[in-house]
């Protein structure tokens, strides 16, 4: 299957006064149409910046310092702002974490939808409105005609996220990047959104990059999983494989610390230490300070190697250690 988007050795760095922050450092992966890639990591691991890099919204002092992002034969990292803009919101769309903040509070829903249609399609306003209404209906918003004239604050959080999804899907994008879109939502609402998104991805053949810190959500949703740690993908492979037989000690620890994986009332398995500061990363494997298997070998940066059906960045994979 041809990949919709293929990221190769992407490096996005932030050149701050305090030093260079390598938010994304040598990241490679690809997603195909209809597939869901779960990009998992804790805060500061670079998963959101990866998303922004693909859609071309990395703001100064950050910029893409290396690597390429291939979409339909062109390298997105090399496109002009104008060319990128014609793809953004059109072929590649993105939705954000906080549904309360993604919609402009002082503009009506129809304004915010119609402008999106008109930005990429030469159609009349009536046609744009019709498409907007259809999109709202598609994501399960009742009486869309009426709701079009409302303001964002008249919607609940879940509804707003649906509107954001509707906006993202207006042009049937090839790739949808979802940055923790359900984290701020309640469980029952999250389930609704997940159900909608899953349906849409399948029906439209859209490639989906689902950025999250919640392994449980990903487990039910993703075809593939990429686990990020300190700006790098440490393990990337088929969802079932990675979750059932994690090879990287970090992935292993992460899965182990989920409460339901532990016996009730007993101490959880935990990863010691803290997530590192990207400004002062130690040389070599970024995880070695927290890793039980670390030794001198880890002081050199481990390369990405295929192993057991996945891409792994580790000197001491769990199967070996065990």
């Amino acid at each position: 299957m041809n990949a919709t988007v293929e990221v190769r050795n992407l490096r996005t760095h932030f050149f701050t006064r305090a030093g260079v922050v390598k938010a994304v450092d040598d990241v490679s992966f690809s997603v195909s149409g209809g597939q869901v890639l779960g990009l998992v990591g804790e805060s500061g691991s670079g998963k959101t910046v990866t998303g922004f890099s693909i859609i071309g919204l990395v703001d100064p002092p950050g910029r893409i310092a290396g690597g390429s992002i291939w979409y339909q034969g062109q390298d997105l990292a090399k496109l002009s702002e104008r060319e990128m803009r014609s793809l953004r919101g059109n072929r590649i769309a993105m939705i954000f974490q906080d549904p309360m903040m993604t919609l402009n509070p002082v503009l009506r829903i129809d304004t915010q939808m119609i402008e999106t249609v008109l930005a990429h399609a030469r159609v009349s306003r009536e046609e744009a409105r019709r498409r907007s209404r259809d999109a709202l209906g598609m994501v399960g918003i009742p009486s869309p005609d009426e709701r079009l004239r409302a303001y964002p604050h008249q919607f609940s959080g879940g509804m707003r996220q649906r509107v954001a999804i509707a906006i993202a899907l207006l042009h049937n994008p090839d790739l949808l990047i979802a940055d923790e879109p359900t984290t701020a939502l309640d469980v029952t609402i999250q389930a609704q959104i997940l159900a909608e998104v899953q349906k849409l991805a399948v029906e439209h053949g859209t490639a989906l990059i689902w950025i999250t810190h919640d392994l449980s959500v990903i487990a039910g949703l993703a075809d593939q999983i990429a686990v990020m740690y300190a700006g790098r993908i440490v393990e990337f492979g088929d969802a079932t494989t990675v979750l059932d037989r994690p090879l990287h000690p970090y992935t292993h620890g992460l899965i182990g610390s989920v409460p339901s994986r532990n016996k009730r009332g007993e101490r959880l398995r935990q990863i010691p230490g803290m997530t590192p500061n990207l400004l002062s990363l130690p040389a070599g494997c970024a995880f070695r300070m927290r890793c039980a298997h670390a030794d001198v070998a880890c002081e050199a940066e481990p390369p990405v190697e295929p192993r057991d059906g996945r891409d792994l960045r580790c000197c001491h994979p769990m199967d070996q250690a065990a």
Partner: protein
Amino acid sequence: MIAWSIRRLVQACFVVLAMTVIVFVGVHVIGNPVDILISPEADQAERARIISNLGLDQPLWRQYGYFLYDALHGDLGRSFVFNEPALKLIAQRMPATLELAVTAVLFAMFLGVPLGLYAGLKPDGFLGRAIMAGSILGFSLPSFWVGLMLIMVFAVQLGWLPSTGRGQTETLFGVPWSFLTVDGLRHMLMPAVNLALFNISLVLRLTRAGVRETLPMDFVKFARAKGLSPARVIFVHVLKNIMIPVVTVLGLELGSTIAFIAFAVVTESVFAWPGMGKLIIDSINVLDRPVIVAYLMMIVLLFVAINLVVDILYMLLDPRVRLERKS
């Protein structure tokens, strides 16, 4: 909304009441208007006649009582100096001040917002920094000094604009306005700029701060992620959000400009602009109490009215407030 208005109104009544008491006592403490107005050659009988004529022979509380009684019957008294109803005097001067203040605020809006927008978008550029530095000048320069400099340069040296005064007026709704004639506009230009200087700086800074706060917001990023042009993102998504504080502040500034902030008095004095600021200063100088009281009452009401307008504007601009209030 209605509750708010009632509250405002009741509050305004208290303010007016407190204010009138303060003015009565204050004027009494400062001095006796008769001392200032009367001819020093007048004899005792003449003096006594005038004092009793103006009602100043009564104890202060009784004077206040009479005032309250008359005020409730719509009579705010006559100016000691002009022998005209105080309200009429104020009404005569109001258009001049009103149009000057409005022009100044318009200047502030149409210069301040674009400059602030630019400075906010390019905070580190040379021009952006220059605009900010310039805005500090607007805060710092004493306005009487700037006023005279304007006159020196544009009237005396270059001869482009008339130096002082109000110029030709045209009557609209029975009120003379100078913005309706070319000559009037020419007269208005310098005082309006002088008056606007502070407000331009203020609006500019507000706008810049607003832009800088709004730009990193998610909805701006989302708008960009939709593939909108930068122009649309800035002029629709960003600008509409920051207009809320800007309009609020502009409205309040309009109020205090009309209501005679420092600059209005000075500007009116330097440019011989026949507005309310000069009237009130002159009235304080001669302790023309009816005018002072009436003026302040007007100001309080004006503030209430402007607050109301600002609130309505606020509602128009911010749907969150609008819908909350409506329901």
